[in-house]
C-alpha cells in the first residue's frame, strides 16, 4: 500500500441538505499528479476542501466519512486540524498573498510552527522561492509588500508559502485559472517538477491542462465519482459514457484551423491589426490560428480578440519563443 497517499473512504458532504458529494471511495496515488475533472458544481472543490478540512469553515456543511493520510483519519475530531493542514498544502484559485512582505509570506508557516532561528528561516525562504521559480525575480526586494507582485508572481509566492511548511500533499484548486498563459505554463512546469517529492491533487476545468499534467484522473459528476484511473486509460479509453461525453465535449469539438497566419517578429499593436484583418475575411464560425512570439502579444492578442466578441479556443506554447493562439470568428 506504499503507493497510496490518501484514501478517501465513504465521503459524503452536504450543504444545508443539498448533497455535494455522494459516497466517494477513492485512493490517491503517492507522488503523482491526480487531476480531478468535471463540470462546474460537480463537487471538485468540495472534495479538495474536505481533504484539508477547510470545509469546516463553511456554515451548514455536514460531512460523513473518512480520509486517511498514513494512519491518521483527517476527518476525526481527535486529530489536530492545524497539524493536518501543515501536512497538506493548498494553492487556491485566486492568488492570495498575506498582507505582509514577500519574505514574511514565505516565513509565515515555518514561524507559526516554531521556527525562530534567523539563518534557518533565511535558508527556508530562499530554497522555497527557488523551487517556486521566483527567487531571481524577488531576491532584491524580499522586504517589499507581496501585493506589489504581479498576479503570476503572487501565485508562485503562494506555492513557495505552501512548500515552506514541508507538506506531503499539495492541493491545487484551479491554480492557473486567474493567470495569463505564460504564468500558467510556469506553474504547470513547477508542478511537474514537484511531483517527484509531493503528492499533487489538482482541480481543473481545463481538460487540456489535465491531459498535460495528470498521471491519474478522477471524474466527478453531480457529486458522484463517475470514473477514476491512470490518465492514459481514462483519456484514451474511458469506461463510462459520461466520462467519454465530458472529454469529447471539451476536446473533440476542437475545430480544424481554416486559416493560419504567422506574426512572428511583429510587435504590438501590429499583431492585433493583422489578426483582426485576417478575421475580417473569415466566415462566422471559422477558425484562425495565429503564431506570435512577442511576449505581450501572448496575453494581449487573446484578450483583444475576446473583447471584439470572438472566441479564443486555445493558447499554446509551441517552443521556447513561439505561441499559437486559436480564435474562432463570432459576429
Amino acid at each position, binding site marked *: 500500500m506504499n503507493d497510496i497517499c490518501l484514501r478517501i473512504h465513504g465521503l459524503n458532504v452536504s450543504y444545508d441538505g443539498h448533497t455535494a458529494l455522494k459516497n466517494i471511495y477513492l485512493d490517491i496515488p503517492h507522488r503523482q499528479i491526480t487531476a480531478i475533472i468535471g463540470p462546474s458544481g460537480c463537487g471538485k472543490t468540495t472534495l479538495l476542501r474536505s481533504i*484539508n478540512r*477547510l470545509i469546516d*469553515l463553511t*456554515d451548514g456543511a455536514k460531512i460523513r466519512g473518512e480520509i486517511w493520510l498514513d494512519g491518521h483519519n483527517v476527518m476525526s475530531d481527535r486529530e489536530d486540524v*492545524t*497539524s*493536518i*493542514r*501543515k501536512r497538506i*498544502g*493548498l494553492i*487556491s484559485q*485566486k492568488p*492570495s*498573498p*498575506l*498582507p*505582509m512582505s514577500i519574505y514574511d509570506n514565505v516565513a*509565515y*508557516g515555518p514561524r*507559526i*510552527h516554531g521556527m525562530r532561528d534567523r539563518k534557518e528561516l533565511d535558508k527556508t525562504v530562499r530554497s522555497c522561492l527557488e523551487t517556486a521559480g521566483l527567487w531571481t525575480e524577488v531576491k532584491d526586494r524580499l522586504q517589499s*509588500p507581496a*501585493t506589489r507582485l504581479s498576479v503570476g508572481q503572487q501565485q508562485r509566492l*503562494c506555492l513557495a*508559502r*505552501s512548500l*515552506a*511548511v514541508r507538506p506531503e500533499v499539495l492541493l491545487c484548486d484551479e491554480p492557473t485559472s486567474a493567470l495569463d498563459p505564460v504564468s500558467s505554463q510556469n506553474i504547470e512546469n513547477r508542478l511537474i517538477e514537484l511531483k517527484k517529492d509531493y503528492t499533487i491533487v489538482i482541480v481543473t476545468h481545463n481538460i487540456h491542462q489535465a491531459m498535460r499534467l495528470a498521471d491519474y484522473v478522477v471524474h466527478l459528476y453531480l457529486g458522484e465519482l463517475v470514473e477514476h484511473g491512470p490518465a492514459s486509460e481514462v483519456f484514451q479509453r474511458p469506461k463510462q459514457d459520461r466520462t467519454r461525453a465530458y472529454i469529447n465535449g471539451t476536446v473533440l469539438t476542437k475545430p480544424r484551423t481554416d486559416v493560419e497566419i504567422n506574426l512572428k517578429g511583429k510587435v504590438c499593436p501590429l499583431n492585433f491589426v493583422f489578426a483582426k484583418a485576417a478575421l475580417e475575411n473569415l466566415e462566422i464560425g471559422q477558425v484562425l490560428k495565429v503564431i506570435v512570439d512577442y511576449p505581450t502579444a501572448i496575453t494581449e492578442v487573446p484578450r483583444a480578440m475576446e473583447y471584439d466578441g470572438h472566441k479564443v479556443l486555445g493558447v499554446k506554447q509551441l517552443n521556447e519563443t513561439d505561441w499559437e493562439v486559436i480564435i474562432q470568428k463570432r459576429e
Partner: protein
Amino acid sequence: MISKRRLADLVSTRLMLAATALVGVTVLFIAVMLFLKARPILATNSLGDLFLSSSWRPSRGEFGLFPFIMGTLWVTVLAGIIALPVSILGALYITEYAPPRVRAVAKPVVDVLAGIPPVVYGVWGLVALSIGGIAIGFNVLSGSIVLAIMVIPVILGVSEEVFRMVPQDVKEASLAVGATKWETARNVVIRSSLPGLAAATILGFSRAFGETMAVLMVVGNIARVPSSPLDPAYPLTALIANNYGEMMSIPLYDSAILLAALVLLLVVLFFNIAARLVLIKVQQKWA
C-alpha cells in the same frame, strides 16, 4: 447650442461642487467666528495664562483653561483605552467566531446601543456608577466608562465592517499552512484591517471628545487638573454647556468660554489630522 442633457450635467457638477464647498466653508466659518469672539480675552490675558495656568477665577479675571483641557484628555483617553480592546475583540468575535445565530442577534443589539440618546446614558451612569450601584463616585473613571459604552458601538460597528472586507481567500491561505484561528485573526485579519481600524478609532475618539451630556452628569465638574482616574474632572464640553449664558455679567467670561470652544475644535482637528497621517503611513506600508 448646449443640449439639455449637457446642461443638466454641467449644472449638477456645479451643484455638487457647491455642496462640498459649503461643508468646507462651514468649518472655516465656525473657526473664524470663535476666534473673533475669543479675541478680547486673547488681548488681555497671555497665552501662557490661558492655556497653562490652572487657576480659574472668572471674577478675578483669571481664566486658566489647563484643568479643562486636561479633563477632556483624561476622560477621552481613558474611554479610548477601555473601548478599543472591547470593540476590536467584539467585532472580531462577531465576524470570525460567532455562529450565524449569535451574529444575527449581536448586530442589531450593537446598532440599538449606538442609537440611544446621550442623556439616557448620562442618567444611567449617574444612577449605576456615580451614586447607586457600583458607586465609583463623580470622577474621570465614571465619565470614561459612560463614554466608552457610548463609543463602543461606533468603533465596533465600523471595525466589523472592516473585518468583513478581508477576503476569505487570504484567511484560508493562513489556515491552510496550519495557523490556528487566533493566529489567523492576529496576523491576517487585524493586520490587513489596520487602516480601517485607525479610521474606526478616529471616528470613536471624535465622538468622545465632543460628547457632553452624558459625561457632564457623572464627571464631577470641578476645575482642577485630575491626577488619577478617581479624581473629578471638568472637561471643556461640560464647561461650555454649564456656563455659556449664565454669569455673563462677569467681564470676558463669554469670551473665555468661546475660547474654550475654539480649543476644543482645534484639539479635535489636531487628533483627526494626526490620525490621518498615521493612516497614510500604514496604508503606504501595506498598499
